[in-house]
């Protein structure tokens, strides 16, 4: 009876996402509350649980992804990263002190104001390399903890090479006022993709960076309107300000368009093991609509909650004042708990109403070609995961999932 059937599961070329609103909201709420009760320590386990759900809901050619990361290793990685960062920031402060640059809370002379600005920006600049370091390490960790068909993904340890490139491309983009942004986007994504693996098979980023320019045009239009408005405010101030507003919104949505479409373009130009290809057609309008709709829903909900909340406070304190006694402790505690729980609720709703639907859209607009080539891919060795994303956690730069 059973025969070796090869990779011909139904809908073999599809990416599907089966995560639903209820379960992820419940999961985000529960883990959020535990995180709150443990003053943040549980957040590593919360992330692992959420990812296990999200990864398990993604199917590639009928097979679900699997997330194998643990909260434990993320916690240990975080501790490690904090110690390294503390030493690094301490060293930076010493160097600054040796050059006589000190942070003065109350600068009185221009010179003091300048040294203060210098000290502050030097301290925050000192963290920037670690931000890029953390970006690469986080991606490597997530890949190392993702499996498909029991086979591990992985990434070469090359975070410092990424740091130098990110610094260089970032500087170029700033110097050229954003004109070389596509070059930066492409080069950094290619650096990571070309070091990524599924089993023993390497991913490759194809295409030329100039291909990304077309997605930047709305940012260009927005900025042009913005500048025109700025110039006009001198002459005709109301219309000028209106143009500035329009330009600002246009440029912002244009940037969202660039982010969404450059993801799609870069995905379409990726290959795996030479034979597997991808198609990705995310819709900018859909992404903006999901974000807008979710934002409006959450705002309305919180406006209602705020009214209830204020009414409760007024009731509690008003009653107490009339009676002359202190406000009842139980009511105060209830108000406090309600206030904090509202933040957890907001986070959970954002996950269920915005992050997950956007992720679903990205996944469901992807297809895979030449999936049969996966059959020849061989398992890769376990990656210890280095700091397990600890730097990203210490620098507080996690994404939605």
């Amino acid at each position: 009876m059973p025969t070796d059937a090869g990779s011909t599961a139904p809908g073999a070329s599809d990416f599907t996402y089966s995560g639903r609103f209820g379960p992820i909201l419940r999961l985000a709420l529960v883990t959020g509350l535990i995180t709150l009760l443990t003053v943040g320590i549980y957040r590593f386990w919360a992330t692992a649980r959420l990812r296990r759900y999200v990864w398990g809901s993604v199917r590639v050619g009928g097979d679900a992804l699997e997330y194998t990361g643990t909260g434990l290793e993320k916690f240990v990685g975080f501790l490690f990263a904090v110690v390294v960062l503390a030493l690094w920031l301490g060293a930076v402060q010493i160097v600054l002190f040796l050059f006589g640059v000190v942070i003065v809370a109350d600068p009185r002379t221009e010179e003091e104001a300048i040294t203060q600005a210098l000290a502050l920006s030097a301290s925050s600049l000192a963290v920037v390399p670690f931000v890029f370091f953390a970006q690469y390490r986080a991606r490597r960790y997530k890949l190392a903890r993702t499996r498909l068909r029991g086979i591990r993904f992985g990434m070469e340890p090359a975070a410092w090479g990424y740091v130098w490139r990110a610094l260089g491309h970032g500087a170029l983009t700033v110097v050229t006022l954003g004109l070389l942004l596509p070059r930066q986007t492409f080069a950094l994504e290619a650096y990571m993709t070309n070091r990524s693996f599924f089993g023993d098979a390497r991913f490759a980023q194809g295409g030329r960076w100039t291909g990304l320019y077309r997605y930047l045009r709305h940012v260009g239009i927005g900025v042009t309107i913005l500048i025109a408005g700025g110039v006009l405010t001198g002459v005709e101030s109301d219309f000028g300000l209106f143009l500035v507003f329009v330009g600002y919104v246009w440029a912002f949505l244009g940037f969202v368009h660039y982010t969404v479409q450059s993801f799609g373009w870069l995905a379409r130009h990726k290959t795996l093991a030479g034979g597997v290809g991808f198609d990705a057609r995310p819709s900018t309008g859909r992404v903006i609509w999901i974000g807008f709709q979710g934002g409006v829903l959450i705002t309305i909900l919180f406006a209602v909650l705020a009214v209830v909340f204020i009414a409760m406070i007024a009731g509690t304190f008003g009653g107490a004042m009339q009676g002359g006694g202190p406000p009842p402790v139980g009511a105060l505690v209830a108000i406090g708990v309600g206030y904090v729980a509202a933040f957890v609720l907001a986070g959970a709703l954002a996950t269920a109403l915005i992050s997950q639907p956007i992720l679903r859209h990205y996944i469901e607009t992807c297809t895979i070609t030449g999936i049969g080539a996966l059959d020849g891919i061989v398992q890769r060795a376990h990656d210890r995961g280095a700091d397990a994303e600890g730097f990203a956690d210490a620098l507080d730069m996690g994404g939605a999932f």
Partner: protein
Amino acid sequence: MAGRVPSALYDGQTARRHVVGVEVGQGALVLHHADGRVEHWPFERLRRISAHADGRTFTLALHSETGDEVPRDPARLVVSDAGLAEAIRRAAPTLGRHDLPRGAIRRVMVGTVAALGAVALILFGIVPMLAATIAERMPRETEIAFGRSVVAQVEGFLAEDDAPLACEGAAGRAALDRMAARLTAGRTLDYDLRIAVFDHPMVNAFAAPGGHVILMRGLIEAAQGPDEVAGVLAHEIGHVEARDPTRLALRSAGSAGILSLLIGDMLGGAAVAVAAEYMLTAAYSREAEAAADAYALALLAEAGVGAGGLADFFARVAPKAGRMPEYLASHPGIAGRADRTRAAVAAPTAPILSETEWSALREICG
């Protein structure tokens, strides 16, 4: 459910999909390969990896100490038949168990202890050492500006509204200057003293980097004569000359910076606030206090002021029930030391301020 149910197996070696016939056997799940090979997956080692979207079927793996992040054999069996899934659920009670890799608890303990040790080493070893080194090398102007920001922070911390706390009574100011002048007559100080009185009821005084000395109104009011204030002032001048406040402020700022990183405050705004609070409450080392005492006694003796005033002051305010005066809290053991100094120093000659000047100083805050 009867017979073998065809299911997808990924063997953990390649990404190739194998179809095996699965049946629930005695004590184990039996997997029949197409080539006739038979595998047994014992029930007690069966673990559910992920639930499928229908909520009933799932993917399975075997519990195994692989040295991976989770103790699971890399092979995966996809159970997509609801009947088979139900039969497995009944046969394998440990399906949903979370297993920690062997030695995980020990690793976390070691990691936590190492991290705490490293943080302690930074806080109690490296930071104080650096603070001392930097305090020695810091340019005078930088130190003065640094001290000004520390004083401003303390002021902001103590002020109820944003009104400035420094008292500006002209006669009182003159009396204070005269007291300082008499104390330091005949000495060349490393710092120009910047003495101020804060309009605050706290019985306290402190020195800040770069020659700043702050007396609180509460301390002047609690004193029974100018000699007592002079004793406290002389002691604080001792700290100033030893650069103690610079070292302490640097140390607290450094420690606060690291602590704020630990609890996730990247702005460092808390750092300066904590440094300010340290100035008010943290104690200098025993050696630093003894040195400041010795310095104060020398100043008082040269000025012909009895050290008994200092001793009297602390002897009087120390035993007062209820509120512990803040100055004592930040200068532990000083009352005892003052007692000892009383015996060591000659009798007072002239009071440091005249009656009129003393009244003026008491009225400096209006």
